């Protein structure tokens, strides 16, 4: 029997995709002295990044989190789009006002990737060993493709996009949680469900990610954005799947660079060794080649 394959819109019939509980999230994450001030969950919006960018322009303080169950104009890098069926993932943005050396600001998108990957590794690892009940399934080996794509193997689990808005930075995360194989936007995408991750409960995942992000952000800003003393550069390199790989980088202006990714430098740029010497990449699409 074949169904029409259309996306099931009703929250009441799609029991496998329960909505997030805004009250519970605020209760657990917003405390006196915490980074997070307010967590808002909306059923639908154009783009959480666009909404918080607007809030930033109106001088909203740092610590706002906006989560959308569905987006109609989700964005990726270079004007690409990010789409997912309602409640099938976590799509959220955070508003931060990092008081760090401007030259160190490039580390914030990388920090977000590191925090997200670390949180996912921890939560799925604990679930696999039985901390949340029946053990089984996979603790996920989530890694980072430079700059901040979350990968399992070579498949993309989550994307991150940041926008600087005067002194604020809005960072958006799109994480695929329960998407089934037939719902993946491209064959190179994946989700926690497709990876057989034991743990797919979105609220707990969001809490874990926001807590990890808070820890790293507080440490990093306390040290004025220094990636060395904060341990950020080391921790990022440890989880970076790009290092040691042969890569092809599509640079702005449609130029291509091929070589071996050998380092992440002090500014967070990817260093690629080529026959012409080491090339430093600050922006580009990285492809891991065989």
């Amino acid at each position, binding site marked *: 029997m074949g169904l029409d394959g259309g996306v099931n819109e009703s929250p009441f019939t799609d029991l496998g995709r329960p909505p997030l509980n805004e009250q519970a999230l605020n209760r657990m994450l917003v405390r006196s002295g915490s980074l997070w001030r307010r967590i808002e969950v909306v059923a639908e919006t154009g783009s959480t990044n666009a909404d918080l960018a607007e809030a930033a322009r109106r001088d909203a303080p740092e610590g706002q989190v906006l989560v959308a169950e569905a987006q109609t104009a989700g964005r990726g890098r270079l004007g690409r789009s990010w789409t997912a069926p309602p409640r099938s993932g976590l799509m959220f943005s955070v508003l931060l006002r990092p008081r760090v050396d401007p030259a160190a600001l490039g580390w914030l998108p990388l920090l977000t990737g590191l925090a997200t990957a670390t949180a996912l590794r921890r939560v799925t690892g604990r679930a696999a060993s039985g901390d949340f009940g029946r053990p089984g399934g996979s603790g996920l080996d989530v890694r980072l493709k430079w700059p901040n794509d979350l990968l399992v193997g070579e498949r993309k689990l989550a994307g991150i996009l940041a926008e*600087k808005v005067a002194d604020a930075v809005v960072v958006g995360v799109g994480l695929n949680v329960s998407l089934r194989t037939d719902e993946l936007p491209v064959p190179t995408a994946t989700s926690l469900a497709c990876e057989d991750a034991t743990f797919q409960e979105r609220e707990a995942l969001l809490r874990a990610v926001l807590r990890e992000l808070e820890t790293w952000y507080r440490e990093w800003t306390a040290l004025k954005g220094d990636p060395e003393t904060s341990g950020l550069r080391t921790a990022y390199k440890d989880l970076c799947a790009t290092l040691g790989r042969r890569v092809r980088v599509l640079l702005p202006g449609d130029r291509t660079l091929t070589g071996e990714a050998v380092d992440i430098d002090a500014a967070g740029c990817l260093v690629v060794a080529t026959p012409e010497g080491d090339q430093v990449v600050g922006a580009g699409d990285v492809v891991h080649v065989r």
Partner: protein
Amino acid sequence: MPEVRAEMVANVWKVVVGEGDQVQDGDTLVILESMKMEIPVLAEDDGVISRLKVAEGDVVQEGDLIAVIE
């Protein structure tokens, strides 16, 4: 003659204005990109773009001149 300079190493993703364009305080001149972070560079004065020093695809270093507004 206010100079608009890059605050960090970045690529020039989008050039929004051209030489000769009238701009106001707050208008976006170019959008830079670094580490998947989009960085709009805004005019901080009213005036005319007398010089535009970057094109899409360029790499700018911290302190590089982007535009001059007269």
